[in-house]
C-alpha cells in the first residue's frame, strides 16, 4: 500500500518526481483541475491543526476531488474510546485516501494496517510531519534551484522541533550541504540525530548560540518556534522563548541571496517587519505546502495526468 508516514520513506528520486509534479501543477493548474474527480480525501484530525487540515483540503479541491472528515477528537468516535485501527477501517470504506493527524506518536503507522487505502501522516505528536518537510523542500528548490551546495542554518528549538529533524534527514542526502545549528544550550539537536544522520553522512556542521555572528554565511535560515507544550516548566519556556528574534537589523547581516523559512505558526521569533523583505519565504512555503500535498495525493492515488 502507498503511504507516507516518514519523509525518509521517499527516495531522492521520488522527491524529485514530486517536485517535478508540483512545478507542473504551478505552471498548468487547469491540467490538474479534474485529476481526482470522484475521489474523496478523509482528513482525520484527532487534534486540531487548522492550517494543515485546510492545506490538505484545498489541495484535494484543486484536484477536483472531495473532502470529508473531522477536525478534533471530541467530535469523532475516538471520544467514545474507539481504537485508531477501527476508526480508519471504517473511514477506509468511504474515502479513497486519508490524511491523519494524531497526538500520539506512531498512530498513523497503526492506521496503515487497517485503512485499506493510502494514509498520509499529517503530524503525529512531536514525531513526524512529512508533508511539512515536503513544503520545506519545494521552497528550497524554488528559491535555490536545487538542493546542493547550501549552508543551512537552523535556529531556535532544535531539540523538540520535529520539522528540524526531518529537514536535517532529508537534506543530508544531497552534496555540499553544511549545517549551522543555532540554539540555546538546552535546545540543541539530540545527540542521536548528530551521530546517526549528520556525522554518518560526513556532513560538516557547527553548533553555535549566536544568530548574528552566523547570519553572513547562511544560504538558508530555518527559524522555529519554541513551543510551550514541550516544556514541563513554564519558567524554562519563558526564559527560552525569546532567545532568538529575527529583526530587520539582523537581516542586514544576511546575504542578498538568503532565504528565510519557518514552518509557521510563528509567535514572535520573526518580527512582522521582516515580512516585506524579499528574502522572507515563509508565506510562499505555505503555498508550496499545498502544491506538494497535491503532488503527493496524485502519487499515492496513482493518478496519471
Amino acid at each position, binding site marked *: 500500500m502507498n503511504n507516507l508516514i516518514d519523509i525518509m520513506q521517499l527516495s531522492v528520486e521520488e522527491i524529485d518526481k514530486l517536485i517535478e509534479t508540483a512545478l507542473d501543477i504551478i505552471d498548468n493548474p487547469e491540467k490538474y483541475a479534474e485529476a481526482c474527480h470522484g475521489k474523496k480525501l478523509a482528513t482525520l484530525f484527532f487534534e486540531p491543526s487548522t492550517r494543515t487540515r485546510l492545506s490538505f483540503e484545498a489541495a484535494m479541491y484543486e484536484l477536483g476531488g472531495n473532502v470529508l472528515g473531522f477536525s478534533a477528537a471530541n467530535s469523532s468516535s475516538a471520544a467514545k474510546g474507539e*481504537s*485508531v*485501527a477501527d476508526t480508519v477501517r471504517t473511514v477506509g470504506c468511504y474515502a479513497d485516501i486519508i490524511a491523519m493527524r*494524531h*497526538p*500520539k*506518536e*506512531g*498512530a498513523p*503507522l*497503526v492506521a496503515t494496517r487497517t485503512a485499506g487505502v493510502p494514509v498520509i501522516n499529517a503530524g*503525529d*505528536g*512531536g*514525531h513526524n510531519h512529512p508533508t511539512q518537510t515536503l513544503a520545506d523542500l519545494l521552497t528550497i528548490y524554488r528559491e535555490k534551484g536545487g538542493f546542493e551546495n547550501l549552508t543551512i542554518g537552523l535556529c531556535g528549538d532544535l531539540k523538540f522541533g520535529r520539522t528540524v529533524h526531518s529537514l536535517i534527514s532529508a537534506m543530508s542526502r544531497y552534496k555540499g550541504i553544511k549545517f549551522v545549528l543555532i540554539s540555546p544550550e538546552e535546545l540543541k539537536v539530540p545527540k*542521536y540525530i548528530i551521530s*546517526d544522520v549528520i556525522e554518518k553522512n560526513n556532513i560538516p556542521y557547527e553548533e553555535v548560540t549566536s544568530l548574528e555572528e552566523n547570519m553572513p554565511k547562511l544560504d538558508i535560515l530555518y527559524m522555529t518556534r519554541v513551543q510551550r507544550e514541550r516544556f514541563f516548566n513554564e519558567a524554562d519556556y519563558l526564559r527560552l522563548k525569546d532567545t532568538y528574534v529575527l529583526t530587520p537589523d539582523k537581516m542586514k547581516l544576511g546575504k542578498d541571496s538568503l532565504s528565510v523559512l519557518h514552518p509557521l505558526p510563528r509567535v514572535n521569533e520573526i518580527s512582522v517587519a521582516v515580512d516585506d523583505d524579499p528574502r522572507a519565504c515563509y508565506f510562499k512555503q505555505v503555498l508550496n505546502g499545498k502544491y506538494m500535498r497535491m503532488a503527493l495525493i496524485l502519487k499515492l492515488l496513482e493518478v496519471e495526468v
Partner: protein
Amino acid sequence: MIVDQIEEGIVLDHITAGNSNQIYNVLGLDKLDCTVATIQNADSVKMGKKDIIKIGKLIDIDLDIIGYIDPGVTVSIIKDGKIVERKKLALPETIKDIIKCKNPRCITSCEQELRQEFKLVDRENKIYRCIYCESQAPKHIK
C-alpha cells in the same frame, strides 16, 4: 560442582554471569514440569564466570528473546545424551512483546492491545527503537 548430564533437553551455556535469572523468567521455565538446573557463577576459561541453564526436556524456546538479553549464549540440543545441534544466537532484527515502550506520547501507551515491537537500528551498539515512535528501547527488560 557437577550437575548430571541430561539425556534429552536443552543446555544454555555461556550465559553472562548474573543473567540466568532473567532468562529463566522470560522463558517461563518455572512453568515446566521437568527438571531445570540453573548453575550460577561457574568458572569459565573464556568468560571468567558464567551461568548455565539445563532444561531436562526438548521444548520450543524463543531464541530471539535470549539473543536480545544475552547474544553470547550458546544453545545446545541434547538427544540420547549427545549434542545433536548447536545454535548460535544473534541480536534479532525485531523483538515483539518483550520490552515495553516507555514514551508516554507513544500510541502504545494508550492502545494497550497493540503489540510492543522494536527494530534493531544499530547492531554494534545494540540499539533498538520502537516501530511506532522511534524511542530507544530500554537496555534491559526490567
